[in-house]
Protein backbone atom coordinates (compact mmCIF):
# COMPACT_ATOMS: atom_id res chain seq x y z
CA UNK A 1 0.00 0.00 0.00
CA UNK A 2 1.68 3.15 -1.18
CA UNK A 3 0.49 6.68 -1.74
CA UNK A 4 1.07 8.51 -4.99
CA UNK A 5 0.57 12.01 -6.28
CA UNK A 6 -0.59 12.71 -9.83
CA UNK A 7 -0.47 16.26 -11.18
CA UNK A 8 -2.41 16.79 -14.40
CA UNK A 9 -2.48 20.00 -16.44
CA UNK A 10 -4.03 21.29 -19.63
CA UNK A 11 -5.64 24.32 -21.22
CA UNK A 12 -9.15 23.83 -19.93
CA UNK A 13 -11.59 22.25 -22.34
CA UNK A 14 -15.34 21.95 -21.94
CA UNK A 15 -15.35 18.50 -23.51
CA UNK A 16 -12.00 16.89 -22.74
CA UNK A 17 -10.69 15.71 -19.40
CA UNK A 18 -7.85 17.51 -17.70
CA UNK A 19 -6.57 14.05 -16.93
CA UNK A 20 -7.41 10.65 -15.57
CA UNK A 21 -6.04 8.06 -13.19
CA UNK A 22 -6.82 4.46 -14.05
CA UNK A 23 -5.88 1.02 -12.89
CA UNK A 24 -3.40 -0.82 -15.10
CA UNK A 25 -4.65 -2.93 -18.00
CA UNK A 26 -3.05 -6.03 -16.50
CA UNK A 27 -2.81 -7.04 -12.86
CA UNK A 28 -5.04 -4.17 -11.73
CA UNK A 29 -5.30 -3.33 -8.06
CA UNK A 30 -7.82 -1.24 -6.20
CA UNK A 31 -6.94 2.32 -5.38
CA UNK A 32 -8.70 5.13 -3.61
CA UNK A 33 -8.74 8.88 -4.03
CA UNK A 34 -7.86 10.51 -0.73
CA UNK A 35 -6.92 14.08 -1.59
CA UNK A 36 -7.73 16.41 -4.46
CA UNK A 37 -6.63 19.95 -5.32
CA UNK A 38 -8.25 21.81 -8.23
CA UNK A 39 -7.31 25.24 -9.55
CA UNK A 40 -6.31 27.44 -12.45
CA UNK A 41 -2.89 28.96 -12.91
CA UNK A 42 -3.74 31.18 -15.90
CA UNK A 43 -3.63 34.97 -15.69
CA UNK A 44 -6.14 35.87 -12.96
CA UNK A 45 -9.60 36.68 -14.33
CA UNK A 46 -13.20 36.26 -13.29
CA UNK A 47 -14.27 33.16 -15.15
CA UNK A 48 -16.61 30.50 -13.93
CA UNK A 49 -15.48 26.88 -13.83
CA UNK A 50 -17.35 23.72 -13.07
CA UNK A 51 -15.04 20.94 -11.98
CA UNK A 52 -16.17 17.35 -12.09
CA UNK A 53 -14.77 14.00 -11.08
CA UNK A 54 -16.27 11.21 -13.15
CA UNK A 55 -15.91 7.46 -13.30
CA UNK A 56 -13.89 6.20 -16.26
CA UNK A 57 -13.86 2.67 -17.55
CA UNK A 58 -11.48 2.97 -20.48
CA UNK A 59 -8.19 4.50 -21.50
CA UNK A 60 -8.15 8.02 -22.89
CA UNK A 61 -6.76 8.61 -26.37
CA UNK A 62 -3.74 10.81 -26.94
CA UNK A 63 -2.40 13.21 -24.38
CA UNK A 64 0.66 12.51 -22.33
CA UNK A 65 1.23 10.01 -19.59
CA UNK A 66 1.61 11.12 -16.01
CA UNK A 67 3.74 9.13 -13.63
CA UNK A 68 2.47 8.88 -10.09
CA UNK A 69 5.10 10.16 -7.72
CA UNK A 70 5.38 8.21 -4.48
CA UNK A 71 4.73 10.35 -1.43
CA UNK A 72 7.19 8.25 0.56
CA UNK A 73 10.69 8.34 -0.88
CA UNK A 74 11.17 4.67 -0.14
CA UNK A 75 8.26 3.56 -2.31
CA UNK A 76 8.67 2.59 -5.92
CA UNK A 77 6.95 4.30 -8.85
CA UNK A 78 3.34 3.23 -9.25
CA UNK A 79 3.16 0.20 -11.54
CA UNK A 80 -0.53 -0.56 -11.12
CA UNK A 81 -1.75 2.97 -11.81
CA UNK A 82 -1.87 4.80 -15.13
CA UNK A 83 -2.07 8.59 -15.31
CA UNK A 84 -2.88 10.65 -18.38
CA UNK A 85 -3.23 14.36 -19.01
CA UNK A 86 -4.60 16.51 -21.82
CA UNK A 87 -6.13 13.66 -23.85
CA UNK A 88 -7.55 14.18 -27.35
CA UNK A 89 -10.50 11.89 -26.54
CA UNK A 90 -11.82 10.92 -23.14
CA UNK A 91 -11.95 7.36 -21.96
CA UNK A 92 -15.33 5.68 -21.76
CA UNK A 93 -17.46 5.86 -18.68
CA UNK A 94 -19.75 8.11 -16.77
CA UNK A 95 -20.95 8.45 -13.22
CA UNK A 96 -20.37 11.68 -11.41
CA UNK A 97 -18.49 11.63 -8.11
CA UNK A 98 -18.04 15.34 -7.50
CA UNK A 99 -19.25 18.60 -9.02
CA UNK A 100 -18.00 21.89 -7.71
CA UNK A 101 -18.40 25.30 -9.34
CA UNK A 102 -15.48 27.63 -8.78
CA UNK A 103 -14.27 31.03 -9.83
CA UNK A 104 -11.00 30.89 -11.74
CA UNK A 105 -9.37 32.74 -8.85
CA UNK A 106 -10.33 30.05 -6.36
CA UNK A 107 -8.59 26.87 -5.41
CA UNK A 108 -10.47 23.89 -4.06
CA UNK A 109 -9.14 21.11 -1.91
CA UNK A 110 -10.98 18.04 -0.78
CA UNK A 111 -9.61 15.53 1.68
CA UNK A 112 -11.13 12.23 2.66
CA UNK A 113 -11.47 11.31 6.28
CA UNK A 114 -11.60 7.69 7.40
CA UNK A 115 -14.10 5.82 5.26
CA UNK A 116 -14.71 8.70 2.86
CA UNK A 117 -12.25 7.94 0.07
CA UNK A 118 -13.55 7.12 -3.40
CA UNK A 119 -12.61 3.50 -4.07
CA UNK A 120 -11.96 2.24 -7.59
CA UNK A 121 -12.39 -1.50 -8.26
CA UNK A 122 -9.55 -3.74 -9.35
CA UNK A 123 -10.64 -4.17 -12.95
CA UNK A 124 -8.62 -3.21 -16.03
CA UNK A 125 -8.47 0.48 -16.96
CA UNK A 126 -11.02 1.58 -14.40
CA UNK A 127 -10.63 4.86 -12.63
CA UNK A 128 -11.46 8.53 -12.37
CA UNK A 129 -11.42 11.40 -14.86
CA UNK A 130 -11.10 15.04 -13.85
CA UNK A 131 -12.86 17.49 -16.12
CA UNK A 132 -14.01 21.08 -16.52
CA UNK A 133 -17.29 20.82 -18.47
CA UNK A 134 -17.87 24.55 -18.09
CA UNK A 135 -14.69 26.54 -18.45
CA UNK A 136 -12.69 29.21 -20.19
CA UNK A 137 -9.58 28.27 -22.10
CA UNK A 138 -6.99 28.93 -19.44
CA UNK A 139 -4.40 26.65 -17.91
CA UNK A 140 -5.77 24.46 -15.13
CA UNK A 141 -4.21 21.95 -12.80
CA UNK A 142 -5.54 19.02 -10.88
CA UNK A 143 -3.43 17.31 -8.24
CA UNK A 144 -4.76 14.04 -6.90
CA UNK A 145 -3.34 11.84 -4.18
CA UNK A 146 -4.29 8.22 -4.35
CA UNK A 147 -3.61 5.22 -2.20
CA UNK A 148 -2.90 1.93 -3.88
CA UNK A 149 -4.64 -0.91 -2.05
Amino acid at each position, binding site marked *: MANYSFTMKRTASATLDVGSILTAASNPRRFRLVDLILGAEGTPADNGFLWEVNKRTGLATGGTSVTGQPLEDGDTIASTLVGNQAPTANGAGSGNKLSIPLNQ*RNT*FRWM*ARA*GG*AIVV*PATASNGLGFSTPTSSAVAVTCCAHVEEL
Partner: protein
Amino acid sequence: MLRNYKSGYGVISGPWGEIVEFDTFTCNHCQRIVRIIPKESNPDYGICMGCFELICPRCRGEWDKTNICKHFEKALEKEEKEYRAR
Protein backbone atom coordinates in the same frame (compact mmCIF):
# COMPACT_ATOMS: atom_id res chain seq x y z
CA MET B 1 -25.16 11.18 14.84
CA LEU B 2 -24.30 13.02 11.62
CA ARG B 3 -21.12 14.27 13.23
CA ASN B 4 -19.72 10.77 13.04
CA TYR B 5 -20.44 10.52 9.35
CA LYS B 6 -18.41 13.49 8.18
CA SER B 7 -16.13 11.52 5.96
CA GLY B 8 -14.52 14.36 4.07
CA TYR B 9 -13.48 17.95 4.30
CA GLY B 10 -13.53 20.60 1.60
CA VAL B 11 -11.95 24.03 1.53
CA ILE B 12 -12.20 26.76 -1.10
CA SER B 13 -9.44 29.39 -0.99
CA GLY B 14 -9.94 32.79 -2.60
CA PRO B 15 -7.37 35.17 -4.05
CA TRP B 16 -7.40 37.49 -1.02
CA GLY B 17 -7.07 34.76 1.55
CA GLU B 18 -10.78 34.08 1.94
CA ILE B 19 -11.45 30.55 3.08
CA VAL B 20 -14.70 28.61 2.92
CA GLU B 21 -14.58 25.33 4.79
CA PHE B 22 -17.19 22.63 4.85
CA ASP B 23 -17.63 19.00 5.75
CA THR B 24 -18.62 16.40 3.23
CA PHE B 25 -19.65 12.79 3.25
CA THR B 26 -19.22 10.20 0.54
CA CYS B 27 -22.43 8.46 -0.50
CA ASN B 28 -22.17 4.84 0.50
CA HIS B 29 -24.10 3.73 -2.56
CA CYS B 30 -22.65 5.72 -5.50
CA GLN B 31 -19.55 7.25 -3.82
CA ARG B 32 -20.58 10.77 -4.75
CA ILE B 33 -19.15 13.48 -2.53
CA VAL B 34 -21.92 15.49 -0.87
CA ARG B 35 -21.57 18.76 1.01
CA ILE B 36 -23.04 18.76 4.51
CA ILE B 37 -24.96 21.92 5.35
CA PRO B 38 -24.69 22.49 9.11
CA LYS B 39 -27.90 22.58 11.15
CA GLU B 40 -30.03 21.78 8.12
CA SER B 41 -33.34 20.68 9.57
CA ASN B 42 -34.60 18.67 6.63
CA PRO B 43 -31.66 17.49 4.53
CA ASP B 44 -32.37 15.82 1.20
CA TYR B 45 -29.74 13.18 1.81
CA GLY B 46 -30.58 10.32 4.12
CA ILE B 47 -29.69 7.01 5.65
CA CYS B 48 -30.12 3.69 3.88
CA MET B 49 -32.03 1.31 6.11
CA GLY B 50 -30.18 -1.60 4.52
CA CYS B 51 -26.61 -0.63 5.35
CA PHE B 52 -27.37 2.15 7.84
CA GLU B 53 -24.97 4.50 6.10
CA LEU B 54 -25.43 7.97 4.66
CA ILE B 55 -26.55 8.20 1.05
CA CYS B 56 -26.83 11.12 -1.37
CA PRO B 57 -30.17 12.69 -2.42
CA ARG B 58 -30.29 10.72 -5.70
CA CYS B 59 -29.66 7.38 -3.98
CA ARG B 60 -32.11 8.29 -1.24
CA GLY B 61 -34.78 8.82 -3.88
CA GLU B 62 -33.96 5.43 -5.35
CA TRP B 63 -33.96 3.81 -1.91
CA ASP B 64 -37.37 5.34 -1.15
CA LYS B 65 -38.77 3.78 -4.33
CA THR B 66 -37.14 0.36 -4.23
CA ASN B 67 -35.97 -0.27 -0.64
CA ILE B 68 -32.94 -2.03 -2.13
CA CYS B 69 -29.53 -1.36 -0.59
CA LYS B 70 -26.89 -0.87 -3.28
CA HIS B 71 -23.81 -0.44 -1.09
CA PHE B 72 -20.76 0.55 -3.11
CA GLU B 73 -18.67 -2.28 -1.72
CA LYS B 74 -21.14 -4.81 -3.14
CA ALA B 75 -21.00 -3.03 -6.51
CA LEU B 76 -17.18 -3.09 -6.51
CA GLU B 77 -17.12 -6.78 -5.66
CA LYS B 78 -19.64 -7.51 -8.44
CA GLU B 79 -17.53 -5.59 -10.99
CA GLU B 80 -14.38 -7.40 -9.90
CA LYS B 81 -16.09 -10.78 -9.97
CA GLU B 82 -17.32 -10.15 -13.52
CA TYR B 83 -13.83 -9.02 -14.55
CA ARG B 84 -12.18 -12.13 -13.12
CA ALA B 85 -14.73 -14.35 -14.85
CA ARG B 86 -13.80 -12.99 -18.29
